[in-house]
């Protein structure tokens, strides 16, 4: 047996000279930042998202006209008509100003429910996945009840029961998104929970919260974040659907979804103007999706 012949007395050293790159002492999030900075495509889409957010914040300063002041004679006018760069809508209001103001409610309706659902659904999912057994059954069966309804129907039913308005719309959308995010967090947690490094962490005497914080969240955050960011565009569209039914944002508030549904009737009169709110939703959701995709890639260690 050759093993006995190689028995040494000193502690044998491993291979310390395999041409490793320069010494890096970076935390996980620092290295995520470095990878993100090298990804120009993601940075570009991030810049567009940032621009949209800034436009929404500084809407009063940027809008050339009052978005609520209409004109009977100047309805559905083309681009550039009397100083209106993007023309006017069906009530003669400046379309650019309405698009700028619309970013506010659209972003709010797109982001707030998703963030709320990500926090509550994610927490519930991690608890269900990590605790397992009965806790898991109770939480996940509760989620299945919500899953059983089509999401649009559920949103309509909830905000219908609670009455219209922006806040109730947000609550309705949050409830619609929680089950899916909970399921994703639960699956990701359950996958990690049985791995040996969790067992090793338990063997060092770590409590459940410490293990979740250091060993589980990093693996759950990625998938939850990706799915949540794809929900932003869905939320904007669902919110516009609610507005259309008179359950979400009410006219005359400027909102992309609402504008899309009211301009719908004028599509044969001035198709370009009708397309603009849709284009705004499209660009925003695409940018959110691609930005989140880039962040996921940066968060994935095994590239």
């Amino acid at each position, binding site marked *: 047996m050759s093993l006995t012949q190689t028995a*040494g*007395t000193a502690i044998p050293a*491993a291979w310390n000279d395999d041409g*490793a790159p320069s010494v890096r*002492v970076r935390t996980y999030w620092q290295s995520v930042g470095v990878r993100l900075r090298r990804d120009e495509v993601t940075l570009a889409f991030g810049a567009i998202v940032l621009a949209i957010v800034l436009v929404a914040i500084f809407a009063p300063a940027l809008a050339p006209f009052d978005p609520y002041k209409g004109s009977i004679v100047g309805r559905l006018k083309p681009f550039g008509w009397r100083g209106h760069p993007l023309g006017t809508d069906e009530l003669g209001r400046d379309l650019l100003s309405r698009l700028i103001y619309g970013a506010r409610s659209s972003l709010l309706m797109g982001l707030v429910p998703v963030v709320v659902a990500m926090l509550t659904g994610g927490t519930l999912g991690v608890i269900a996945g990590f605790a397992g057994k009965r806790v898991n059954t109770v939480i996940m069966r509760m989620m299945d009840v919500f899953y059983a309804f089509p999401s649009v129907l559920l949103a309509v039913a909830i905000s219908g029961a609670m009455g219209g308005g922006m806040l109730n719309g947000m609550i309705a959308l949050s409830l619609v998104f929680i089950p899916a995010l909970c399921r994703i967090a639960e699956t990701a947690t359950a996958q990690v929970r049985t*791995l040996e490094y969790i*067992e*090793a962490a338990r063997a060092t005497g770590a409590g459940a919260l410490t293990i979740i914080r*250091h*060993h589980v969240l990093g693996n759950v955050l990625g998938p939850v974040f990706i799915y949540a960011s794809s929900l932003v565009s869905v939320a904007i569209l669902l919110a516009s659907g609610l507005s259309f039914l008179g359950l979400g944002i009410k006219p005359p508030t400027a909102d992309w979804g609402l504008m899309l549904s009211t301009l719908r009737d004028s599509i044969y009169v001035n198709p370009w103007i009708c397309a603009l709110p849709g284009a705004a939703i499209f660009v925003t959701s695409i940018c959110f999706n691609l930005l989140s995709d880039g962040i996921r890639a940066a968060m994935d260690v095994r590239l």
Partner: protein
Amino acid sequence: MSAALDMDRGGPQQPMLIVRDLKKQFPVKATGHPRGARVRAVDDVSFTIFKGETLGVVGESGCGKSTLARLLLHLIPPDAGELVFDGDGVGAPDGITVDALRRQLQMVFQDSYSSLNPRMPVQDSVAFGPYVHGKKWPEARRIARAILVKVGLNPDLFGPRYPHELSGGQKQRVNIARALAIEPRMVVLDEPVSALDKSVEAQVLNLLRALKRSFNLTYLFISHDLSVVQYISDRVLVMYLGRVVELGPVDEIFARPLHPYTVALLGSRTSMDPAHRIERPPVTGDPPSPIDPPSGCRFRTRCPFAEGVCNSAMPQLGAWQDRESHVAACHMHDRTSGHSRAGGHA
């Protein structure tokens, strides 16, 4: 290490760990089995590990070796049985808690890939134990880097790396470092080298031996590789279908195996001598299912010496007292059993 000596409460004669009648069954959920069927993964296992020794545990796949390791650390709760760590009953009213046990008893896992968090630099994986035990992160990292040196890894080079940037042997060194980071007195090694190349295996085994000396450790070493067990162990425990079939000093077991299963296991080793090549399989057939194990002796279905008594009575492991005892759970070594070969063979 002086800290370890200070904690040597029971004195050198007190065994490090006494295991009594440890038992674990898992419910079977697969179809084709009756409701309530249970896998008897570990069935009334009793043994003692003395301070400073390496107890090797061998057996086929599925004989309950890994379950045994996890039971010792209470990573899975045992159904029955008792653990006494250095004189203190684990979970007993006047004994120590499971947390206190885990401060002194650590484990190295088999799969060096899934046993390290892929999203954590390895020095943080090692530092996690000290962090859990109340150290701040900078101090915990300093400890981790000192331990990485002890396992032969340059902390400047390897500490900040992620597991996927290390080789199998390097990852297993990190795993060993993690187990040692909270200064345990005993380490359970669950197949620590079975996933490694032969050359790397030898390096890691030598590392384990050297660490045992310098940290004054006690090992429970689980392996299916008899050569590895022979090399590293002081005593050997042979398991078959969740039960201990033989226990004794390593030289005794390898020179004069008592149990027919141990004889067969030793016969299955690849021969280094072409003149003595193995031509017949030493044990025929698969091991029976632990869900519905054979009555009496569990090895009787594959044993060449099985008789009526093996069918009806469960052989007991003989009484043993100290490190030199060599005992087997076989009717052939129990003069009162009534087996035709009883007494004459021992």
